[in-house]
């Protein structure tokens, strides 16, 4: 079914009915702020009274729509777009009359095939919430989204189990094909939500870190103190960033690298920290994909990047080198301030992305026990002769050093810079 107004499955009478599109929107946005667009799908088999419209989230304007519908309104108004995704897309409506009508469906609904979306230039943040089974253009749209949150029980796949059964004779359940356990591990969902309430909270948090559009001011908040000092992984991020500000992305994908958005003295930043407790903190092939997506998003919307590096020498791995080179290229091309804290071993890819990416505004600081070298056997302690650190900083002084640097390079009213090279890079890594 294309429309979220569909009645709940008859087989599941015990379950509460699925929320309608309108109910999802009303619970997501600021109370009473939703204004439906008068969008009539005339001539279609199913006429919807409204596929979306404008609303406020934390007082800032957004456009919310069904599965990518009315996205053009967000691109024109230059504010974020949120897709509440559910449905099979254009096939059921347009298929009978072949491509001419399918074009009309895609053109009218303004989904992923819209030229402005397909050649995504990351002018505004785009979010997809998979609240129910999403196939066809509902699923395509996630591949062009900066952020994807998937609700448990919803299936996200190019096409549904029924088409698979008919076309290829493969018998799979919704859960096996594209359930949360598939996309939490392959990285295609940034967040897994257990309840609709978690979906709304996640979207609001994600958007709270980003400007409304590339070129707009960064949403800087009042500074908060950091957590207690910890040496690695998530606790280290809590210790460097404002307490409670860390919003993790793709937690269960490539866990050796922890990534997410956070605030440093109120300034929104992208954070990437090795977690030696998981996969030795390695920049594995998947970890490089994980990092590249965040680097592109952060650069497009002007968020500084903070890397905490404690990664081992490289291991032989399929696609390991190519993904590492891709990440190194992304880091080089990123024009936002980039800061590195070498907390342990800067080896292998960890060194690769740190070393050649240095440009004038970058900061590389090392903890006293840090060591660098491509292979563990040739690593040496930080001093200006061996490798280019801007300074050796004690763990306790790390946060204040980062804050001072970011304050200095960003100035009193940080604004994201539009037109960056990485804005046209692929969205789904």
């Amino acid at each position, binding site marked *: 079914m294309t429309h979220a107004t569909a009645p709940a499955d008859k087989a599941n009478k015990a379950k509460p009915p699925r929320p309608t599109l309108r109910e999802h929107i009303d619970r997501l946005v600021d109370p009473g702020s939703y204004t439906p667009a008068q969008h009539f799908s005339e001539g279609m088999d199913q006429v919807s009274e409204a596929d979306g419209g404008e609303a406020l989230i934390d007082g800032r304007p957004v456009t919310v729509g069904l599965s990518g519908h009315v996205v053009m309104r967000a691109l024109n108004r230059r504010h974020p777009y949120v897709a509440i995704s559910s449905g099979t897309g254009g096939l059921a409506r347009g298929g009978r009359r072949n491509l001419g009508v399918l074009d009309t469906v895609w053109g009218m609904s303004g989904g992923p095939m819209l030229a402005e979306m397909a050649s995504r230039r990351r002018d505004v943040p785009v979010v997809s919430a998979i609240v129910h089974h999403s196939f066809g253009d509902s699923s395509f749209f996630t591949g062009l989204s900066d952020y994807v949150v998937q609700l448990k029980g919803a299936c996200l796949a190019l096409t549904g189990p029924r088409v698979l059964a008919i076309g290829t004779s493969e018998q799979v359940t919704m859960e096996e094909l594209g359930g949360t356990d598939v996309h939490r591990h392959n990285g295609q969902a940034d967040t897994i939500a257990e309840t609709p309430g978690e979906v709304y909270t996640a979207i609001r948090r994600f958007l709270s870190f980003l400007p409304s559009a590339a070129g707009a001011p960064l949403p800087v908040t009042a500074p908060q103190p950091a957590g207690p000092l910890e040496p690695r992984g998530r606790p280290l991020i809590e210790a460097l960033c404002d307490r409670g500000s860390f919003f993790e992305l793709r937690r269960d994908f490539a866990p050796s690298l922890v990534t997410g958005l956070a605030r440093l003295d109120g300034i929104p930043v992208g954070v990437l920290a090795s977690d030696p407790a998981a996969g030795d903190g390695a920049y594995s092939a998947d970890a490089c994909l994980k990092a590249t997506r965040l680097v592109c998003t952060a650069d497009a919307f002007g968020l500084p990047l903070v890397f905490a590096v404690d990664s081992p020498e490289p291991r032989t791995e399929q696609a390991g080198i190519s993904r590492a080179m*891709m990440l190194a290229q992304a880091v080089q091309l990123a024009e936002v301030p980039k800061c590195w804290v070498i907390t342990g071993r800067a080896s292998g890819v960890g060194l690769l992305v740190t070393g050649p990416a240095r440009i004038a505004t970058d900061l590389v600081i090392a903890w006293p026990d840090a060591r660098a070298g491509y292979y563990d056997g040739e690593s040496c302690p930080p001093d200006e002769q061996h490798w280019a650190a801007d300074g050796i900083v004690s763990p306790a002084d790390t946060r204040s050093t980062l804050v001072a640097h970011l304050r200095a390079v960003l100035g009193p009213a940080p604004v994201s810079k539009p037109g960056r090279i990485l804005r046209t890079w692929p969205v789904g890594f």
Partner: protein
Amino acid sequence: MTDTDVPLDYDDQIAQLVPARRSRAYDMKAVIRRICDEGSFFELKPSYARNIVTGFGRLGGIPVGVLANAPMRMAGGLTPECCMKAVSFVAMCDGFGVPLLVLQDTPGFLVSAQAERDRAIDRVMTLLQAMSLLTVPAVSVVIRKAFGLAFVILDGNRAVDLSLAWPGAEIGFMDPPVAANVLFEPQIKQLPEPERADFLKAKAAELGVGFEPYGVAANLTIDDIIEPGATRSVVGRYLRTSLAERPPRTAPSPLASWPRWY
């Protein structure tokens, strides 16, 4: 770079390389070699993601990038790996200003639980993104069949300069037998078992009529239908004129900065 002396003659042999029956495989590289100037086709990554063929050739002396489905391999169905092979090739062509020739014969993207685990959505949409960002002259020719999202994407998100098909081509939203099954499921369920197969066959045939290229051309989904033998001359002449008209680039294309590896 144009050698206008290379003739762009009608080729009365090429049609024989492609069997009319949709399920029969054939060697797409043989088709490519006949469209390109003799001996000019230079294949890239021949052993990787073999369902899709990438390489450089010349057409009337003009260097051209060729992206083609390979019906010999899984009927030319596209895997996530094929998408990345295509993306890095297309980005290279666009980055260096080499025109693109797309030869389509594919049942679409191969869907499976494994493909979804292999990040099919991201891969497919990255190919859509790359094709949508093309700045070089691009021509697409549907040789035999092209369906759904794969057709839309390989057609440059419907924005290639010239979208062509051979007369026997099928173009539609989904392979007709599968589409009939999906679209008419409610009706099929109400029929007694023995009648279902005939009903499906009839519905698939009905849908198939709408997939013939003349109807598809009539609703402006494609620009023209050409005889197989005219492919080389039509594409070659188009490239000559479009390159002659094109002002030199003043800035690198967006795809020039895309990753070389994925």
